[in-house]
Every structure is written in structure tokens, then in C-alpha cells.
């Protein structure tokens, strides 16, 4: 399962790199700088308002295995990026949000968001539902052997990722900015400097995965993080050692079952706390979805209801 999620992360990255090869990062960042002031900063809040304020029609699946879920998540996000690229195509031709006011494009984005939501937090067969079911099973098992405080501490370990490949997005981002500073100094990015950095992994990864391909976001984070340090890098290793020693105390059958559940919880948390940040609605692909909602909302004067926006645009009001 660990291998499956590593491959999933690599596939997501490859799809983004292929997109950058078609448009070039210099061009993508140029288009991002033409978005209206506040558009990027308010994107997540606006998107959450849209997600929470509308009904989404997805099917419910029962008893989903983590392996199947990861495959579904991958397929959904491959098509989510395709729709994002389509939106970007419109933006790069017109350089204006007005070009996104289109009933057919909005329909594509609604469909795409529906599919993303299907594997997301609020879906009965989504990530949180699956995670909660595994946590409940593990909690029930551990309660047979440990008191409530220890169970709580052990369950928390499922959210800590300190080994090289499993880190939270936040921790990975800080490490990458430190690496950037080490390799290039505190160099703010401009289109000219970015052109010189083509093919350099660290700045490209930071832009793609943590800055929604925006030079302004990159520069802001670089200046804020240049004096920040991670405070407790060894905490995760210590927690994992404690977990292993507690699990030694329980009979082998339950120990094996607990180990499987822990692994599933860690994988799902890695998806939630790392890959979703980079490739789902909080990342660049999500930004390309929310700009369509924003443009259609402005044009129709309808703040949240995406179906009403669509109906109004379809009627040509």
C-alpha cells in the first residue's frame, strides 16, 4: 500500500510536469499574475463556500477498500487536472476571467468538482469516511489493551510522518524552501530568473506543488520562511518508536491487525495532508476550477448556487 501511494504521488507529479512541458512554467506563471487581486488568496475560502453551499450528486459505495479508493482517487484527479488545463487554455488565450463565463465550461467544472467531491471530505464514500472507519476499528481494538489517554496518543501517531517519503505538505514545503535557499540564496523569482531556472527541480516543485504556479506566492513564502526553522524534526521518529513498543504488548493476531490499520490510516492521512494539498482543490488544479465559479458568480450575480448560475447562463440572461 505504501508503494501504491508513492506511485500515485509520482503519477500526479508526472501529469503536472507534462502540462508544464506543453505550456512552460514561465507562461503558466505569467497567466497567474494576470488574475485579479485577491483571487489566489481568497480561492480556498471561496471554493469551500461553493463546496459547502451546494448539493453534489455522487453515488455511495459501501465497504470500499483502501487500495480501490486510491485507484479511484487517482482516476478522478487525472480528469480533474484535464478540466483545469481546459480552463487554463481559455485563460491563456484571453487573459481575462470574462472568457470563463460560459455555460458549457461551467457544466464541465461542476461535473469535475462533483467527481472530486466523491472522493473528498464530505462524500459518504470519500477520504474522511474511509479514514474514520479505520480509526474507529483501531480505537475499538486498542481500547481492549490500553487506557483512553494512551489510545488517544497512539491514534495521533497515524497523522505524523517524519520519514523521508511521508511528510505533511507543510513540513515538505519548509524543507524545500530551505533547500532552495541553500542552492540559490534568497533569490526572489521574476519571469527572467525563472527562465534561467528551467529544469531545476527545487524551484519548479515549489511553484507547482506549494505556490499554485504563482511567482507572487512563491516570493511571499520565501521571504516569510527564510528565517523560520522546523521546531521538532525528530518528533515523528520518537512517536513511531513508542507506538512499536506499545504494540509489542498485545497478542500477535491483534498486533497484526493493528499494524494493518495503522498503515491504512497513515496512507490515508498522507493522501489527505500531502497529496490533496498539492493536486486537489487547494492546489493549482483547484484554483483553475474556482476561477470559473468566481467568473460565473460575478456575471450572474449569484454568489454560491452553481446550478442557478448554470441555468441563468444557459438561458442567456
Amino acid at each position, binding site marked *: 500500500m505504501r508503494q501504491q501511494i508513492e506511485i500515485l504521488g509520482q503519477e500526479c507529479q508526472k501529469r503536472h510536469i507534462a502540462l508544464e512541458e506543453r505550456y512552460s512554467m514561465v507562461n503558466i506563471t505569467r497567466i497567474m499574475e494576470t488574475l485579479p487581486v*485577491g483571487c489566489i*488568496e*481568497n480561492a*480556498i*475560502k471561496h471554493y469551500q463556500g461553493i463546496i459547502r453551499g451546494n448539493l453534489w450528486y455522487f453515488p455511495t459505495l459501501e465497504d470500499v477498500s483502501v487500495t480501490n479508493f486510491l485507484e479511484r482517487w487517482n482516476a478522478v484527479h487525472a480528469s480533474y487536472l484535464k478540466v483545469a488545463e481546459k480552463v487554463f487554455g481559455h485563460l491563456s488565450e484571453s487573459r481575462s476571467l470574462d472568457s470563463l463565463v460560459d455555460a458549457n465550461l461551467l457544466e464541465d467544472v461542476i461535473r469535475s468538482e462533483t467527481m472530486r467531491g466523491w472522493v473528498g471530505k464530505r462524500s459518504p464514500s470519500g477520504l474522511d469516511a474511509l*479514514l474514520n472507519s479505520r*480509526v474507529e476499528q483501531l480505537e475499538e481494538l486498542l481500547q481492549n489493551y490500553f487506557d483512553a489517554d494512551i489510545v*488517544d496518543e497512539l*491514534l*495521533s501517531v*497515524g*497523522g*505524523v510522518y*517524519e520519514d523521508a517519503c511521508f511528510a*505533511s*505538505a*507543510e*513540513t515538505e*514545503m*519548509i524543507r524545500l524552501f530551505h533547500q532552495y535557499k541553500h542552492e540559490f540564496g534568497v533569490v526572489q523569482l521574476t519571469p527572467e530568473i525563472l527562465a534561467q531556472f528551467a529544469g531545476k527541480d527545487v524551484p519548479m516543485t515549489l511553484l507547482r506543488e*506549494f505556490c499554485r504556479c504563482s511567482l507572487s*506566492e512563491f516570493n511571499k*513564502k520565501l521571504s*516569510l*520562511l527564510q528565517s*523560520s*526553522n*522546523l*521546531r*521538532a524534526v525528530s*518528533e*515523528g521518529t520518537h512517536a513511531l518508536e513508542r507506538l512499536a513498543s506499545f504494540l509489542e504488548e498485545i497478542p500477535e493476531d491483534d498486533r497484526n491487525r493493528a499494524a494493518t490499520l495503522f498503515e491504512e490510516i497513515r496512507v490515508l*492521512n498522507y493522501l*489527505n*495532508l500531502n497529496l490533496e*494539498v498539492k493536486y486537489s482543490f*487547494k492546489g493549482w488544479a483547484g484554483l483553475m476550477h474556482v476561477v470559473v465559479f468566481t467568473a460565473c458568480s460575478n456575471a450572474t450575480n449569484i454568489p454560491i448556487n452553481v446550478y442557478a448560475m448554470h441555468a441563468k447562463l444557459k438561458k442567456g440572461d
Partner: protein
Amino acid sequence: MKELTGESWRVGCHAETPVTGRVVIVQSEADLHKVCKGDVIVANQTDVNYTPQMLLASAVVTVEGGRYSHAATFSRENKIPCIIGTSGIMDELRDGDIVIVNTRSKTITIQKT
């Protein structure tokens, strides 16, 4: 002095001793520029864009979130005192309030408004 607590409040990351700081309400990323070193960030939830400011903060308080939320996970990784699930907190606190965040008692005491 007013002490706040709630049934739904959970600890994202424990601190050995209570911490005192100035409240900064962060409704969205656009408010992040208000955060200075030692402040207590009070937000609905946090995401990766809050990272630089979380490293400056003396404590983080979120309305939403559970054991594995971004706020709880990053706070644990970096030993930042953190309380999550504090529904109603936004109605009680204002920018500039001086508060004591106590993760052991799961309370926030407003010292000065």
C-alpha cells in the same frame, strides 16, 4: 478575566506550560499578514498557506478540525500548542485580546481585551 472552554474542544498538540499571546483572528489567507511573532492564531482551520505564520505563533486555535487536521498535525510535528474544535470561539475573541492558552485544562483565558 474570562475563561473559555467547551465539550467539543480537543488538544491538537500539548504544551508543558500555558502560553500567553495576542489574538489574531485569521478568517482567510488575506489576514495572515497581521500575524507577528508570539501571537495566538485563531482561525476556522489552517492549510499549507498558513505555515510561515504558524511557525511564528505561540499557539494555534481552530474552530474546525480533528485529530488529523492540518492544524493538529503540523502543530504536533513542530510542538506548537494547539486546541481544535473550538466551536463558538470566534464570537468570544477579538483581534488584540491577550489570552492564556492552556492545553492541559483545554481552556483559553481572556486576560485583557
